[in-house]
């Protein structure tokens, strides 16, 4: 009774990770009907740009740019808000939505009964979250362009930069979510997200922070996203940008690894 059982030989098995695209298709299918939810997330950074960039900017005037030359405050704040919109977009779909699917809807249990595995789930969900972040960033970029806040052709690279920021935050957000046990745990998320937003050299330059705090700010992934975006929109380009890129990429890769491991532990017991 141990001879090989009949196997259908026409079976095509994609490589591990390739199945991730089906989870993206799933998200597209879900959002096709609730696209309004997507649209709403676009406005928050826009309001900050109008309120703070232009409102407060009128009082601040200009401040020293990355290369020491003074730049108008709007030009300083806009790329930071673009980075923030990529972050927020990625976090929306990598935290609460994942929590729901993991703990209430049991979506992934259904997925894992198919040829797909935890790596496909992790990549697919992170990819969708980063797509959402990137869409917001692109929308924001268009607004910046229209308002004349794009100062250099290098600024086209802010789109891939937004993808990188989305990747880092989606991966870390999803990894953190695998430890969340109840909805109240998400209060912690706000406790992290708001200071990140306010204190990542978003609204004022790093040099204005007290020396001890500067080191802490430099640990913030959003800080690296903000600096990357700012330098690109202002055309202040050099090898130091690779440090930001490496930091965000490493964080995203780590998050992805942790996600796959955690999903395995939670779902494949």
């Amino acid at each position, binding site marked *: 009774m141990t001879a090989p059982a009949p196997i259908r030989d026409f*079976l095509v098995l994609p490589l591990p990770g390739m199945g991730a695209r089906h989870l993206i298709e*799933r998200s597209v299918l879900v959002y096709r009907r609730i696209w309004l939810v997507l649209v709403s997330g676009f406005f928050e950074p826009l309001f900050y740009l109008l309120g703070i960039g232009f409102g407060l900017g009128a009082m601040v005037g200009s401040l020293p740019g990355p290369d020491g030359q003074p730049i108008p405050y709007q030009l300083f704040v806009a790329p930071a808000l673009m980075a923030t919109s990529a972050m927020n977009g990625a976090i929306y779909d990598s935290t609460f939505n994942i929590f729901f699917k993991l703990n209430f809807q049991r979506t992934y249990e259904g997925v894992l009964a198919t040829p797909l595995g935890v790596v496909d789930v992790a990549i697919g969900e992170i990819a969708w979250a980063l797509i959402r972040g990137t869409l917001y960033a692109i929308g924001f970029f268009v607004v910046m362009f229209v308002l004349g806040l794009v100062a250099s052709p290098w600024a086209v690279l802010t789109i891939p930069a937004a993808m990188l920021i989305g990747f880092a935050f989606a991966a870390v957000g999803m990894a953190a979510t695998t430890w969340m046990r109840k909805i109240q745990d998400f209060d912690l998320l706000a406790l992290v997200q708001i200071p990140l937003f306010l204190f990542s050299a978003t609204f004022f330059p790093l040099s204005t922070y007290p020396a001890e705090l500067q080191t802490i700010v430099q640990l913030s992934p959003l800080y690296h996203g903000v600096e990357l975006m700012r330098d690109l929109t202002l055309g202040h380009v050099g090898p130091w940008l690779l440090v930001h890129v490496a930091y965000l990429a490493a964080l995203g890769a780590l998050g992805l690894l942790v996600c796959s491991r955690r999903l395995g532990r939670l779902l494949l017991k």
Partner: protein
Amino acid sequence: MAAVPFAPVSHPSAASLISARGLTKRFGDFTAVDAIDFDVAPGESFGFLGPNGAGKTSTMRMIGCVSPISGGTLRVLGLDPAADGRRIRAQLGVVPQQDNLDTELTVRENLLIYARYFEIGGPDARRRADELLEFVQLADRAESEVEPLSGGLKRRLTIARALINEPTLILLDEPTTGLDPQARHLLWERLYQLKRRGATLVLTTHYMDEAEQLCDRLVVMDQAKIVAEGSPRELIERHVTREVLELRLPADDQAPLDGRFDGLEPLVERVEQRPDRVLLYTSDGEAAVERIHERGVRPESALIRRASLEDVFLRLTGRTLVD
């Protein structure tokens, strides 16, 4: 419906589709499945019958390659789940104990996206989805959301979803638990259709009538172990008598049996006292009733019925299947 909603096995005489030897599952110190052996042949309808906590789901999850085995060996479709889980899962249809339908999608979308997970797309996926909706009689609900569906309809959709990849092996973990009798009978009828067309079904249940209706062969599971194996008829013949006389004694007569049913052998093979009734296992219920009356026992009611798998379970474990 023209299409066959599963993949018929090309050589029915070939090896077993599932083979387990000493299969074990541990969660920490707790042993949920304790060194069980079983084989499932192609085209067979095989059941795990046992009460809650017996280890049925743990076994099904190991077969489904979503739970690593803790000991023994397991081969599914001739492959090792630890090494070839993806390849095995590509050929399984899984109906889990708890429905995990995609509540963010419609009924039809559930099937279409599931097809995508199996690399089936385009017109193929749409055709299969429509056929399967017909098969489970959900075609008129195709555009409905999942959440408002009743338990029975959700179950039918889960079964349709499990068939989207034309599976070689269909795993059903308690397919009708929690459903009302009508919904249950419809499901049984659909599963019977699959069986009739030659599908290999592996199912778990704690309903003896379900096991009797659907299983060609089954194992009785209790406390992580297999305690008996055979066809429903074999199990009944081997472990219990043909008939059972159920007596309900008056409420004021719940005293110990104090010998009232002693010495009835060989007519009555065994007497079982339950909290609310006394069961007499006998080859001839009518004769047993007479003998009881002769002895002056006046039950409130006396019912003669055929022995069932429930009696087998009681015999083997001293407990009932459904509490």
